[in-house]
């Protein structure tokens, strides 16, 4: 298997706070990898550093793909309210116009379920619609590595199912790093996952290998791991 992203000893310091602490991760090509952790675990910081929106304090990040084949969907995407859905997606296509044809715009809009709002201005969109539009703006660039920061957080159960199906459909074509709070989403979509807390990796490996016990659910196992780590950290202090 080809390693498409290799992160080693990545650290990010905000004053006294260490948002990422010697963080290590390897992503295999074509897999969907979940990033799980409580608020403040460092998930968004990690994704921001990976696309260059923030600077690392130290550590190493190596991609096996060019920077232009990398895309990030932020947790609360927002767009110019005076543009229509089609114009926003076409603007997102512009840097990749040499390899992505204009006809792809409508196709991608239909893929995320916004075909009825194609000529509507995005100013009046709900958060869920903006999240779908955000997904369209990253899919239009045909990325090889897709970083998703809580892509289902504002979606209703139907929308969530659609997005998860979409992510499942990307398997083997695109490598997805998928940050979320919803543990059942990780269980149903991801091949592997990283559980993190306070910038540290608590678990990194396949989903199947995570729960050894037949009696404990996936969700309980993750919560157990996080609670034990928090208690240990508190005891150390």
């Amino acid at each position: 298997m080809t390693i498409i992203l290799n992160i080693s000893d990545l650290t990010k310091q905000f004053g006294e706070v260490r948002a990422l602490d010697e963080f290590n991760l390897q992503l295999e090509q074509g897999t969907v990898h979940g990033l799980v952790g409580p608020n403040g675990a460092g998930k968004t910081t990690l994704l921001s550093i990976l696309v260059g929106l923030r600077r690392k304090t130290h550590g190493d990040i190596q991609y096996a793909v060019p920077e232009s084949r990398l895309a990030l969907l932020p947790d609360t995407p927002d767009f110019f309210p005076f543009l229509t859905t089609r114009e926003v997606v076409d603007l997102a296509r512009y840097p990749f116009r040499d390899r992505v044809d204009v006809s792809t715009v409508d196709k991608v809009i239909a893929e995320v379920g916004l075909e009825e709002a194609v000529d509507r201005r995005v100013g009046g969109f709900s958060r869920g619609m903006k999240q779908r539009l955000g997904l369209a703006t990253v899919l239009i660039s045909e990325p090889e590595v897709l970083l998703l920061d809580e892509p289902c957080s504002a979606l209703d159960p139907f929308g969530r199912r659609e997005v998860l199906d979409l992510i499942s459909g990307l398997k083997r074509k695109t490598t997805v790093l998928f940050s979320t709070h919803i543990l059942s989403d990780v269980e149903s979509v991801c091949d592997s996952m990283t559980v993190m807390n306070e910038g540290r990796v608590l678990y990194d490996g396949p989903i199947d290998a995570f729960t050894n016990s037949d009696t404990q659910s996936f969700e309980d196992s993750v919560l157990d791991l996080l609670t034990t780590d928090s208690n240990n950290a508190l005891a150390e202090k």
Partner: protein
Amino acid sequence: MNLWRVELLHLLRTWRGWTLSGVFLLASLLAVLIGFLIHRSSGSSFTYDQTLDLYMLFAWPALLLWTGIAASSFAIDSNKERSVFLRLRFSLAEILISKSIFYFALAGTLWLAGFAITFFLGLVIFDGSHQISLRWFLWGLFFFLISGIFNTSLILFCGALFRGAVASVLVVIGLSLGLPIIASLLVFLELLIRGLTDTPPVEWETVSYVARVLVWWPPSTYDAIVFMSVTPSEIAANANISIGQALDLDPYFRIKPLVASVISVPAMALFAWHRYVRREI
């Protein structure tokens, strides 16, 4: 869809573009109207070049509005999510260069359109027997463009200083409007203290120490736009009369702020670039 079209749609689909065009048009119509009233009340011959002088004065509020609109547009990081959308797809150079050229061209186009409207209406309504000197017009235009370049760089500079649009807009307007007002007040106080209050405003620059410093302030190049309405009779008298004030027809009239602009524009652009690049989102 590209960044240029986004800027254009931003103006056309919001109040900004229409209000800005309206205020420039209003300046033009107001210049003609005031000219018409002066012409009727005084009974003297009112020439179309005097209407142009009035337009230059009335276009000030429109330029201030442009400053506010441009400054809020340059605050690209004031909305984190939109900033992420742009920065992940376009290089910072693409974003800043397209904005700089777009807003510089916008101010120039609207101002000159207002100038042209005033010119043609003035020619039709008032005495149009004098011809504007092309040579002096081009010299005035040159100073106008330099003033536009400086203002765009100042907006870029302030956009880099602050993330928020409001702070950026306030500082730019404060520098463009507040600084000359405060300086003029200081000049007046200085003349009052030195007992020189009878000095006509055109001579302040040679008499007042504060005014001598102020003349290096780059936006002063805008004063030289009065050259855009110089007529043969003014050339013969070697004086440009604008809104009752007579200025010597000296091409080096605003050479000091021109030098200051040439130095400060690249310095501000470099500083802005450094700040924008280092800013974390």
